[in-house]
């Protein structure tokens, strides 16, 4: 039975009156790995920024459970935001802090745990992403792929219900990208979290996506949704078909 964690209703996104996408309506169900796909510049990342509350919608609403993200008071909103974790495209680790400090930051701020316990949790999160022993490294001292995994560890710091990923495999080699996909899937299965991924990497889309929405650049709205594998077989829309089959003709 579908159990929507996030509901988007008639969302229109715009920068200074310039509409990026209009009339988006979809639901993200508990336990889904929800892919936001579309070609470059169609507004995927903008949609992510709206979903996590960093940008306000021009029109429409985003609800977490039954609570509206944008109509909530600032304290309610803070509580909602704490239920989500975000992995930004570049990892966005704070460069002046070690990996352990990066992960401890939200724990120290939002929980009443002792510093010893926080350190243990930070170590555990790093172990989950395969970075055991790298607690005292600075982000600049590790590779890009490792930074991304450390970013994931930080996104998971507060055991969020919903994890957002912005282009998780961008800039990674195919094997690292595959490992990261597996990791995302594993974490979803074991943590029972809901995962939302912005991506245009077909291998990721097909291997982990259980549901999706397809944003189109020219018509500036969503033109397809559903399980990516099913979409590939059933879609009649040539734009979606071309995207999913990497067809550059026409």
């Amino acid at each position, binding site marked *: 039975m579908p159990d929507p964690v996030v509901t988007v209703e008639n969302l229109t996104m715009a920068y200074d009156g310039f509409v990026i996408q209009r009339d988006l309506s979809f639901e993200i169900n508990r336990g889904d790995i929800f892919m936001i796909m579309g070609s470059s510049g169609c507004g995927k990342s903008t949609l992510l920024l709206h979903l996590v509350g960093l940008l306000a919608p021009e029109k429409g609403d985003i609800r977490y459970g039954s609570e509206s993200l944008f109509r909530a008071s600032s304290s309610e909103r803070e509580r909602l935001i704490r239920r989500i974790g975000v992995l930004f495209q570049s990892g966005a680790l704070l*460069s002046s802090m070690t990996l352990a400090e990066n992960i401890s930051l939200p724990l120290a701020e939002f929980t009443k745990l002792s510093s010893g*316990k926080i350190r243990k949790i930070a170590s555990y*999160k790093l172990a*989950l992403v395969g970075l055991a022993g790298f607690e005292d490294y600075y982000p600049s001292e590790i590779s890009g792929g490792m930074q991304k995994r450390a970013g994931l560890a930080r996104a998971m710091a507060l055991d969020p219900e919903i994890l957002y990923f912005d282009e998780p495999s961008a800039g990674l080699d195919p094997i690292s990208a595959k490992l990261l996909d597996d990791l995302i899937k594993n974490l979803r299965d074991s943590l029972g979290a809901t995962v939302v991924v912005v991506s245009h990497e077909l291998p990721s889309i097909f291997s982990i996506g259980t549901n999706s929405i397809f944003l189109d650049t020219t018509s500036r709205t969503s033109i397809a949704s559903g399980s990516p594998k099913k979409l590939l077989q059933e879609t009649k829309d040539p734009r979606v078909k071309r995207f999913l089959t990497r067809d550059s003709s026409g």
Partner: protein
Amino acid sequence: MNASPSWRLDLVDLKTVKLSLMGDWTLQYAEGQKVEDILIALSRFSRDSLFILDSSGLNKWDSALMVFLLEFVKTVNARSLNLDISGLPKGVLDLINLASEVPEREGSEKKKSSNDWLTLIGNAGGRLIQDGLRLTEFLGDSANSFRGFLFGRARFRAIDFWLQVQECGPSALPIVTLISLLVGLILAFVGAVQLALFGAQLYIADLVVLGMMREMGALMTAVIMSGRSGAAFAAQIGTMNVNLEISALKVMGFPPMDFLVLPRMLALVIVMPLLCIYSDLLGVIGGGLVSVAFFDIPVTQFLHRTAGAVHLADFFIGMFKATIFGALIALAGCARGMQCGRTASSVGDAATSSVVTAIVFIVVADSVITLVCDRLHI
């Protein structure tokens, strides 16, 4: 419903001990649970027993349970006890596997540096020497690049140079105006009070014009510019370093010394003497205002004394200083920018250190020039 986390040990049969986890093992409630307590309790049983974990009473769980279990499993394994964890929820088992999948890499643990004072002093000294060497190297590089410029081989865009001239020159006029006028005022006031004791107020003009031309004009402009342009150079070049722009320039065949440092250095070297002339003038006006308004010296007399007191040599000493200071500020700013690390905070450090370095350089250079002028009687 929230139940505080707890555990219980039961003897199932002679050889089997059951460890049951109950309640909510969440970050919010599980703070007080210690692995050591269970271990002490376990030690009451025979070492050959089979220990099984039971989670049927477990309600909610999150990272708190995971941290607890990982530590527990690790210590129990280290004591080579017989442990069966299959009774845990599937999610927990998956996470335990995931967390132990990639073992800690050999040697990834960082070495803690020693903290005794001798090491600290040694390290500080080492850094100072290294810093001096790097600055010297940078000076050499920029001289090299300047030679290339003289022979028309330097690769930079003229527009960059003019932009820097605009940024360092006209844009700095308001702050230079304010500071110079006030410095002139201060010089006149401090001097006049003393000179008035001998009834020699008329000599305020000499004091102000000589003070501004030989010393204060160049010095104050340099201090302003090191805070304004020097810090800006360090921050601009430092940010480019963070974004890998410097590397991009290098591989495209633009030596950053030519492309970034040279236009900035030329701009400051050209603009500084001009700003200094302006500052001298404003300082004299400031001094004149005080003389006329507070010490009843007629305007014409002030101008007459001013013209009589100053020689061309004084003016050129000031110009010379300003030029040298300009080069030093650009050097400090660009060098700190180029040495900037790859993190956000290192850009801030570069800007701070560029100002400190520039001011130290300026004061040292000023002392040397003043001393040399005194020896040469100019």
